[in-house]
Each structure stands twice: as C-alpha cells, then as structure tokens.
C-alpha cells in the first residue's frame, strides 16, 4: 500500500450544483439543467451518468442527457420514490448534490464516419439524447443519423419540442411511434421495433445504439439480429441498481461486469456471453 494516494479525494462526497432551469416533460419526468457551484464543467462524455443526491433522502444514478458541447448538465428525473419526489419539489436556484461523471461512454470515436441508428424506448431517449446532440454538434464527423423513438402512450412523450425540431432537420431522420393509439396522434402506432424495417441506412454497416426499459432489449436485439446487424456494432445502455457508482458496492453487477464502470454503455458483442445482461 503506497502513501502517494493519501491526498485522493473522497469518492463518496457529492459536490453541490445549482438548478438553473427546470420543467416537467410529462406527468412524471422532470427536466433539469444544473451548473456546478465550483464553476467547473463536469466534463462528462455522452453515455455517462451522475449520482444525484439530496442529503437525508439518499442518492440515485441519473443519466446525463446533455452533450458535453454545452454548458452545465441536463438531467431527466422520473418521480418514482421519495428521493425523486423531493427532487421534483426543488426549484430554480436550489442546490443538489452531484457525484460523477461515472461509467463508460458511447463509441464517439469508433462511430466516426459511420451511419448511426438510435433506438430509444421511453425514458431511454434521455441518455441517448446526450450522444445525439453531441453528434449534431459534430455533424460532419458522422454519416447518416436516424433516431427511432418509441413511447408507451402519447402523454408520456419526452422532449416534444426538440423532437419537432429534429423532425424538421434535413441532416437527420426522426421516426416516432407510440404503443397505444391516441386521438391527437397521427403518426406510427406500435412498439419501437416496428420502425426498424423503415430505417434507410444500411443497417449491417451502421452503428446501432439502443436504450430503453428492461423488457425492450430482447425484442430490439432480435430484430437487429434479423436485420443482420453484427453484435459488435450494437451498443446498449443498461440500468441496474447502483449504490456507489464506483465499482465497489456490488449492486449493479451483471455477471462479472459492473454496470457503473464497465457500463452503462456496452458493446453488445461484449455482453453476448453475459447471461444476466438482458
């Protein structure tokens, strides 16, 4: 044991950040923009997450939804428990604890020059948005960009204004679907896998990025296998229970992998022999 590490910082100590913007995206999802009180940027990469905390109520892993090309970070928090309920009550100007960024990144480098297909189910759009925006900010580095967004029902749709802007862009294709038909909805109805055959990119040569609820992966991955997308060009973004965020506590482990460190973004070929992954 060396002593050179004694000046190391405490990995469990959150830094304080201030909420600079907030709005509800739908009935349960709160969008927040944070700036670190230190004045520094978190310097995250797309795909990474932070541990967000309110002292006294606990800590939860939350994906970063913004691109590192912009100032501050943007997060989306679903109201599912007492911590997130308390976060929903915070107002602009109030403080929140942040640890991170943690975890693996989207294949920013490996994907350069290739066509990208994002498959997003429900709240899975949140982390994907980080990479999508990064790609749009570095548009020339990447080939065709297709974004598939599936949402359970009309009222749950996230980032509606932003999706409207994306749908008007000529340098990307957005396809959206909802699982259950709705009076105000003229678009696709059905699960997100139904959009896969409509993708115009050469799927086997594209990089495909998947994020959604646990049940979604199996079906999407089957569809991608059918479309002959090789496993090493598919990236999935997984959710697990994480306590520490730094590969110690063991909660997020799937077989030998720690989602908080080896993930949350995994190349599917690396998970093929990891039975607990999906």
């Amino acid at each position, binding site marked *: 044991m060396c002593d050179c590490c004694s000046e190391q910082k405490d990995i469990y100590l959150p830094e304080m950040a201030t909420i600079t913007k907030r709005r509800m995206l739908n009935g349960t999802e709160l969008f927040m923009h944070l700036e670190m009180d230190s004045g520094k940027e978190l310097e995250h990469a797309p795909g990474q997450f932070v541990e967000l905390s309110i002292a*006294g*109520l606990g800590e939860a892993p939350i994906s970063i939804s913004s691109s590192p090309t912009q100032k501050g970070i943007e997060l989306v928090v679903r109201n599912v*428990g*007492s*911590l997130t*309920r*308390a976060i929903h009550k915070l107002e602009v100007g109030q403080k929140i604890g942040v640890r991170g960024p943690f975890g693996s990144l989207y294949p920013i480098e490996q994907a350069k020059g290739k066509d990208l297909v994002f498959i997003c189910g429900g709240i899975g759009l949140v982390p994907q948005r980080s990479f999508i925006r990064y790609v749009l900010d570095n548009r020339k580095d990447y080939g065709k960009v297709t974004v598939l967004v599936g949402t359970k029902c009309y009222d749950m749709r996230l980032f509606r204004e932003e999706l409207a802007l994306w749908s008007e862009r000529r340098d990307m294709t957005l396809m959206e679907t909802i699982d259950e038909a709705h009076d105000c909805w003229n678009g696709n109805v059905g699960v997100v896998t139904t959009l896969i055959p409509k993708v115009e990119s050469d799927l086997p040569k594209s990089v495909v990025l998947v994020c959604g609820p646990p049940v979604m992966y199996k079906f999407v991955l089957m569809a991608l296998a059918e479309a002959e997308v090789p496993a090493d060009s598919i990236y999935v973004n997984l959710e697990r229970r994480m306590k520490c965020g730094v590969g110690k506590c063991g909660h997020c482990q799937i077989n030998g992998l720690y989602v908080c460190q080896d993930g949350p973004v995994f190349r599917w070929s690396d998970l093929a022999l990891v039975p607990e992954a999906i």
Partner: protein
Amino acid sequence: MTKPRVAIFDFACCEGCQLQIVNLEEEILDLINVVDVVEWREAMSEQSHEYDIALIEGSITRPEDEKRIEIIRSRCKILIALGSCATIGGINKLKNKFDLEEVKHCVYGKDAHMPHLETGMTKAVHEVVNVDYKIHGCPIDRKEFASVIRALLVGKKPVIPDYPVCVECKARENICRYEYNEICLGPIIRAGCGARCPSNGFRCFGCRGYVDNPNVEAAREVMDKYGLTVEDLRQKMVLFGCGQGPTV
C-alpha cells in the same frame, strides 16, 4: 413549519408497543420537539380528531373496532401499524384456530353469552383498512420506531428490512440455534430487530412476521438434519404465524 400531528390508538393488545415509545426515554423529548402528539390515551388526557399520522397498536377483534379503525383511517394521512398485533394479528390470531363459541366458553364458562364478551375473528389492521407502513415486532424495536418516524418526517420512505433475521444474527456473531438442534424461525422471519432473541440465547419465534418470500419448504426440509420434526416446526410457526402466508 407546523409540526405534524400524531395520534396513537390501541386495539386488542398488551400495550407493550406504546410502552416502547415511552421507553425512548430522553429521546421522547426529541420526539415531542418535532411532532405534536395530540391523542395518546395511555399517556395523556388530551384528545383530538385532527391528526396527520395515526399509529395503531393492536388487532381488530370486534365489529365496533372495525368501525373505529375506519374512522381513524378517514381522518389521517398516514396510518402506521405498530407491532405484531397490528401488522400480522400477532399472538391474538392463535384464537382463530379455535371455534369462537368454544373459546368464550373456555374462558368465561356459563357467562360466555354475556354481550360484552362478544368477539370475532382476529384481524391485522391491513385486513380492515389500508395501512401505509408497518413497524414490526412484539414489541416494536424502539430504535427502529425512531428511525421510521424520522424518515417519514423528512419525507423519506423508511427502510424496513425484507431479509431474514439471520442477517442481523450473523452480524452479532451469535452461534446459530440450529447448531444446538433447536428450532429458530430466523431464516424465514423479517429482520429489523437486531436479532435480539437469538442474541440472548433464545430462538426466533417469528414476532416480526415472514419476509416477503419465505422459503417455508426449506424450513420444513432442514428439520431432519437437526433431529427435529415438522410437527416441532409447526408448533413454533403457529405462535405469531397464523394465517399470514405459506405454512407447513
């Protein structure tokens, strides 16, 4: 900020759980600093119909008690069942194993018919009204009670263990009761008590009720290994376990 109003009510029970609140000793001064106790018959003369949190001790055994608990439920925002009698029916449910008329006759003889001795099947509180939280144990553990109350007061969901007593028993370095060829219900009973009984050389008799998913089948199968019988196990499981889930 106004302090939350708390009321404490008792039904069929021994009042030992209320006593654990008193047993907070000096901490009870901390408690009354952060809540207004507006009704608590055992400890004070004041009464109120307006409260945010109702703490319910005891089982429901009579029709008039069902009405009373429904009224309490309608008046409070959070209803907490306090102790085994309230959370699982407790020792009172042993009665349900018998014919009620026979039970009355056994205790009161020729007077069993008197109207004030009327009784019904014992029910846990959640069998009558919706319960928000359960503080388990016979009696409740005062430290756990304090931490549940504090969690609720800061708006946090209290942590109530869903793992067996063995976790806490091992942490206290007790020698397993099974190594003495004694039955202990620790492996299927919810922790949170700090394994108090096995730490004092006594088997767990299950006062906190089952974990959510007790492996009762395993409990039955290990009997042989320790020279015990399934009937021995049944004797122990029935004490606080009547009608709360799978049995042997």
